[in-house]
């Protein structure tokens, strides 16, 4: 670059900073600021007002006063329903994630082994359902699982059962819905990982005496670790806060934190407690999110060299 053009350009931000700042600005505007608002509300007290909570920051004789109330968080600890909801959400998320992994890994593996020409079609089939509204797809499961729904009618007609099985509004239905809705989030990162595997590594393992299942355990599985972690996080994190599926397919006893949050917010109109619930959920989720990012960073590190 000549001295003439270089002279004044030096004072402009470099193009890459301009590029990076756009998504950061987006996240700041639509993630960080709402987060701070929710954080603020979690320290307020419910009030019959507009908005329905007390001020956290107000002015007294020209001085700003910050009044943080921890009582919402104490309240969460005091009532066992919240702790149970968190534990039950985590449990459902863990079980659903393992189910997704058990179903998604063989799927992703099989797709990655297809001839290159048919892989994209198979992937399209995985993604295709999400072209329909999430709500409609979950709603459709009601029609399949209800007492006089598709499954029960089919079994009744075959004479395999005498009375309809209760499937809708049970934990079983919740798992079906979650696994169904989140399976693509497991399959896609696993596929992306598995398709990059070098088949010669498996030949090398076979050459050194490993039977096919041993090659899988010692070579394919460890090399797909990053994909497994990514898939599990992509499923587990949103499932913890899932509201629609337990609301539509679960029974009144299906306790999930997303539902509790909804009830606090819309039924009890207690925004401060709802915000505290949300903040606590975030705190719980941060641990797996950090693990996820560290795993991703490690994989990137391995690639660069």
């Amino acid at each position: 670059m000549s001295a003439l053009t270089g002279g004044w350009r030096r004072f402009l931000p470099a193009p890459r900073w301009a590029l990076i700042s756009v998504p950061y600005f987006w996240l700041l505007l639509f993630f960080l600021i709402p987060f701070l608002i929710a954080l603020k509300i979690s320290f307020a007290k419910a009030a019959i007002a507009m908005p329905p909570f007390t001020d956290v920051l107000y002015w007294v004789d020209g001085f700003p006063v910050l009044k943080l109330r921890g009582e919402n968080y104490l309240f969460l600890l005091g009532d066992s329903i919240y702790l149970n909801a968190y534990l039950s959400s985590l449990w459902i998320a863990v079980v659903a994630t393992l189910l997704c992994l058990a179903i998604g890994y063989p799927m992703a593996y099989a797709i990655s082994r297809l001839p290159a020409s048919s892989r994209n079609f198979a992937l399209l089939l995985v993604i295709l359902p999400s072209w329909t509204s999430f709500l409609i797809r979950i709603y459709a499961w009601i029609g399949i699982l209800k007492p006089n729904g598709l499954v029960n009618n089919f079994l009744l007609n075959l004479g395999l059962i005498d009375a309809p099985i209760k499937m809708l509004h049970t934990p079983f239905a919740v798992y079906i819905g979650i696994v169904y809705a989140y399976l693509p989030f497991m399959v896609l990162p696993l596929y992306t990982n598995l398709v990059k595997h070098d088949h010669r590594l498996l030949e090398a393992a076979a050459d050194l005496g490993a039977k096919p299942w041993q090659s899988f355990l010692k070579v394919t599985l460890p090399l797909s670790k990053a994909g497994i972690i990514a898939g599990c996080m992509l499923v587990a994190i949103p499932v913890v806060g899932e509201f629609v599926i337990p609301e539509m397919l679960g029974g009144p006893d299906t306790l999930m934190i997303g539902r509790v949050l909804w009830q606090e917010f819309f039924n009890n109109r207690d925004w401060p407690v709802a915000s505290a619930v949300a903040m606590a959920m975030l705190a719980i989720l941060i641990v797996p999110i950090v693990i996820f990012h560290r795993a991703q960073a490690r994989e990137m590190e391995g690639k660069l060299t």
Partner: protein
Amino acid sequence: MTSAITSTPLAPVAASADKRIDGYLRIDTVRKEFDGFVAVDDVSIDIRQGEIFALLGASGCGKSTLLRCLAGFEKPTSGRIVLAGQDLTALPPYERPVNMMFQSYALFPHMTVEQNIAFGLKQDRKPKEEIVRRVEEMLALVQMGKYAKRKPHQLSGGQQQRVALARSLAKGPKLLLLDEPMGALDKKLRSQMQLELVSIIEKAGVTCVMVTHDQEEAMTMAGRIAIMESGRIRQIGTPDEIYEQPNSRYTAEFIGSVNLFDGKIDQDEKDFVTIACPALPDPIHVAHGVTGYSGMEVAFALRPEKVQISKQEPAAPHNKAQGVIEDIAYFGSHSVYHIRLARGMKVLCNFVNQQRWASEGFTWNDAVWVSWGDLEGVVLTS
């Protein structure tokens, strides 16, 4: 595999060369077809114990498919592969006493150098101390002891190759396969690693089949070479046999460069033949008999370094022709002259620059004589 690791000799086998078993590895009319395409066409080769044998050919000649049949990655359509009396044909790769060094090494990226080398030994469920000892032995053999804890991506190409070799030798295989061993190395490292690889393989005393498209590599590393073309073996022999005594136009042209004179046998005597050749004014005189008949179409193959170049007419009565220097390629150690003969054929002549500035004796458009001794060429009947 039941053979104990410790039984693998690390002493040189060359000393016991005369005891080598002929046909240690028998490739018996092996044929491999893919959807009607014949990749390997009824190939039979006997390989001796302890030798380094190269399959040499252009890409697509079937050499890699044959190697993969030996490793067990491909199942021959017909034919048998017998190693040390054991029929391997139907065995899967993981049950064969055969190990392979892959073209791009195929080292396990998630394992250290040590773990890579130990992989095969762990597969055999060897006792832990034995594995540790054997891995150390292998690391010492390829001089990679310092790098035992490194991951493959932290190593240079040459170091990766040593690890790959150590990994394929660790189990003490009866047969070692090398797939384009120098393919992933840059040119300078190649010539160094070629000899090093040979010395390691000879130390380990293992029988070795390698595949390469690089004739220099095959000639440097292998004791014997098989030239493959369209799935068939064209010639098997030591490097010098193949170079000096090619059995067909194909091998003559494939290995090195050659001047080929087409002609017909003119006089067919017991101790000499003459070949009438349209490109030359006088018949070629060959001072030995050939199995042929008068009038038979043959080709006379003459390597460029066997061609003499001179300004004066040589004294010999035959095997000479006049021409003009059309091109000169100067290589420092030698020069290659492209000489256009009076009747139009171009002859290559290698001239060793034995004296400094010797190459200045000839220049473009000089009228020169080319000549050759009457035992220096090969009469090819096919």
